[in-house]
């Protein structure tokens, strides 16, 4: 189930729990799957120097980012025996408590999904040009850096 053309991974605004639930629902017709593993990135209300993050405003170098997501996807299908893989990332404002990243892998057997999901999430963090402006409650901001 790989495809050659990069898909658009980005969604405007937060990723809703309904969207995630529905995505799980759609996999119930795929009866060769025995294990799903889902990673969700959620915006934290971090306190930094006494100020609290209220949202992150995500931007991206979209063409390059979608190309990188595509390469990560192809590499993961190459390395791991996966039945499906889905990646969604937010652009624009995502408030604290809302979800900005949804990675979903499925396989006949469980051992592979753990390895695959961690591989994909770490690759996204390291290789995909997405930028996050952490907006504080007083509307000042700072730029997020992945650790």
């Amino acid at each position, binding site marked *: 189930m790989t495809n050659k053309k990069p898909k658009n991974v980005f969604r405007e605004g937060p990723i809703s729990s309904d969207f995630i639930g529905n995505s799980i629902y759609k996999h119930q017709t795929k009866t060769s799957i025995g294990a799903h593993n889902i990673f969700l*990135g959620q915006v934290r209300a971090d306190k930094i120097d006494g100020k609290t993050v209220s949202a992150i405003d995500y*931007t*991206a*170098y979209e*063409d*390059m*980012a979608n*190309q990188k997501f595509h390469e990560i996807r192809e590499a993961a299908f190459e390395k791991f025996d996966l039945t499906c893989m889905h990646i969604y*990332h937010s652009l624009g404002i995502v408030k604290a408590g809302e979800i*900005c*990243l949804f990675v979903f892998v499925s396989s006949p057997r469980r051992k592979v999904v753990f390895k695959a999901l961690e591989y994909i*999430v770490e690759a*996204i*963090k*390291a*290789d*995909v*040009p*997405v*930028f*996050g*402006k952490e907006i504080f409650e007083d509307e000042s901001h700072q*730029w*997020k*850096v*992945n650790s």
Partner: protein
Amino acid sequence: MLITIKYFGLIAEVTNTEEESLEFSGTTISDLVNALHSKYDSLKNKDFQIAQNQELVDFETKLTGDEIALLPPFAGG
């Protein structure tokens, strides 16, 4: 040659623009970075990588005239 440069995130704040075209006579990424450091003084303190034609390149890479992007640290997820 005429080079299109994209700026993102913190870097776009420094340059105060997200994209510009420059007439440029240097031959390497390094030459271009030097020119941008002259144009935008506070760029010198900033951490960024360069993509040419959507691939990260090092400073010795030859300029091809494709799209250049200045990318601050990634923060996906």
